[in-house]
């Protein structure tokens, strides 16, 4: 029997063996990713409420999409999300690259310092959200104390002010995820062959020129990759912001994903929120594709 199976297996082509190995994964992917996606898309054309199981499900066509795209509140949340993404990615790119450049130098304690810097990203976002609420406390918070130590702004409330709250979430996300950008950039910096710098020195290129013409182009694909990951993550940002501000004050920090959660799992507007989720998915998928193409062009250059 064993021999028979072996004999049969030997007769299989490489392609067949490949299919045998890949089929379980494909099936799993279909079951947990593709099927829910198709189901969500089909739900988005209905008036389905998951908490009203007795209610007749009606086909509403594009009504949910029209309603969402015409709603001012949705565009406000999109703007809040875009602003959050812009500032977090910008700050994480600059600070992450800066830290990577510093840590790329050889000095005593380099490894220990790297480990300490990456600690924030090892924490749970929910925990980070909770303890930063204490750090931002206007009466006893360390953050306010430090800021006022350098310049006395008087009492200010990072979470309770609509001007400051968007910055409060940007600061926390930057604190938490800059180490990630830094690590990827560091990997990029360490992959630059030394002979490039030696050749540049022979050509009498100064430090700035070396940075602009060797370091930056070499590390850029790595940095862009890190930003792609961070961009996708921040587009979906939920837990840290919910713990920190609950989307408030008012809706000043209510990101699109928080609003989506409230529509889907608090109001239980399943059809409507499916349409919202599809719009968000198409948005990030579209941006992601364009971004990858740009990134590949930069890499090829």
């Amino acid at each position, binding site marked *: 029997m064993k021999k028979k199976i072996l004999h049969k297996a030997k007769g299989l082509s490489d392609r067949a063996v490949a299919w045998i190995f890949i089929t379980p994964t494909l099936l799993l992917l279909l079951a947990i990713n593709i099927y829910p996606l198709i189901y969500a898309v089909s739900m988005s054309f209905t*008036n389905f409420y*998951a*908490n*009203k*199981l*007795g209610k007749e499900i009606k086909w509403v066509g594009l009504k949910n999409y029209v309603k969402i795209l015409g709603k001012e509140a949705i565009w406000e949340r999109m703007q809040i999300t875009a602003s959050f993404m812009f500032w977090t990615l910008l700050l994480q790119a600059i600070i992450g690259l800066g830290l990577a450049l510093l840590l790329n130098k050889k000095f005593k304690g380099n490894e220990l310092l790297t480990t300490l810097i990456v600690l924030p990203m090892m924490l749970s976002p929910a925990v980070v959200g909770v303890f930063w*609420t204490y750090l*931002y*406390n*206007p*009466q006893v*918070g360390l953050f306010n104390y430090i800021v006022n130590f350098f310049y006395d702004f008087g*009492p200010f*409330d990072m*979470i*309770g002010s*609509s001007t400051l709250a968007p910055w409060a979430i940007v600061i926390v996300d930057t604190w938490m995820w800059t180490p990630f950008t830094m690590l990827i950039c560091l990997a990029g910096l360490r992959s630059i062959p030394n002979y490039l710098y030696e050749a540049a020195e022979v050509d009498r290129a100064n430090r700035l020129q070396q940075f602009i013409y060797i370091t930056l182009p070499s590390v850029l694909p790595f940095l862009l990759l890190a930003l792609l990951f961070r961009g996708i993550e921040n587009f979906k940002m939920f837990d840290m912001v*919910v713990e920190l*501000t*609950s*989307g*408030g*004050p*008012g*809706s*000043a920090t*209510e990101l699109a994903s928080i609003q989506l959660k*409230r529509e889907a*799992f*608090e*109001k*239980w*507007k399943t059809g409507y929120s499916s349409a919202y989720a599809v719009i968000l998915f198409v948005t990030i998928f579209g941006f992601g594709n364009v971004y990858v193409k740009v990134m590949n062009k930069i890499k090829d250059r």
Partner: protein
Amino acid sequence: MKNKIAILISSIVFALSSTQAVKSESITLGWAAWDPANALVELSKDFTAQTGIEVNFEFVPWPNFADRMLNELNNKGKTFDLLIGDSQWIGGGATYGHYVKLNDFFDKEGISMNDFSDATVYAYSTWPKGSENYYALPAMGDALAWAYRKDWFDRPELNSEFKAKHGYDLGVPKNWDQLYDMCTFFQGREIDGQVRYGAAINTERGSEGITMGVTAAMYAWGMEYENPNKPYDMEGYFNAPNVVEALEFYRKMYEDCAPPGHSDAYMVANLDAYKSGQVAFQMNWYAFWPGVSKEDADGRVTGFFANPSQKVSAATLGGQGISVVNYSDKKDLALQYIKWFAQPDVQQKWWDLGGYSCHKDVLGSPDFVNSAVYAQGFLDSMGIVKDFWQEPTFVELMLPMQEHVHDYVVNGKGSAQEALDKIIEEWVEVFEADGKL
């Protein structure tokens, strides 16, 4: 050897069967994680002792309570046999078939709703409102009330300074205007070397916090959600001038009386602000007063009072009824628990342990008013309570209220009138989608 194997097998069979027996004689009760839940655990020991039925508990912190429980009900989950669900869930519980209708059971067991306070039966048990369809037994009476630093009020130097400024004594405020005077009097004042503030009020954005706070003012200003003669007609009622005035007043309270950083605060944050000595007043549920009172054995530090009136006397309703979950496999055991819980002596013990009984025998007992410093306030409050919408769509109604009220009170965006108009606009959408309009 054979004997040993036989003994081993029989012990395993015995162990399994006894586990099965214990499992079948246990029920699970879900509620919020707060002080009264501990009292209920203590109380339920008597039920287990009398019936042999174990009671397991799952208590969920308030910010996640509605999410967790409503998720469970919508998924027809069997985790809970009994649920002490929030008063606003009664409409959904009844309409969507989550809760067992208890009328036949009450009739069979001789449990009369007339034995429970009318306001609590109306608020916690009935759907549609005003009908005699019962989906819960009133379990925990509650309303929003106030605690204040009596020890500061009793200081002659503070009282004379206050009196000189406002022309009346520091004491329990008779209305919201007086409450505001007292709060601003303490705001930023140094007492015993520490800076103190006026009041810890509800401002929480994520669940129901700020709604439960502003409605305390709105009800006192005589707010009606809808036209009493034309259901769901809200224009001119919910956004009437008196409601606008109440909302503006609440914002003034937040701006002039709240401690710094109190922008996303509810039950625990208010308790913390009060216990740490930051504020002269805290707004909170009666459920917490036994705990506050316990730390002040001689009653010197803290005083309690019902929500002050302004144009009318009213208070925000809290509290819950206990319901049998329709998806439970142990409905008969769960009903046994309700039967036991409805008994007057159990209700008396419930109050003694720190729960808030709604039974008339307990509330009407001559000793009741003197049994706790907050007992009279509780009685007064339960006679004037008003609740948020209890419609099946109450979460859809709560979310826009939270958003727009928080935007106005905490964020300072727009006007009170605009906030109320926006809320009505979204409520109309909800009622239209639900076929009520």
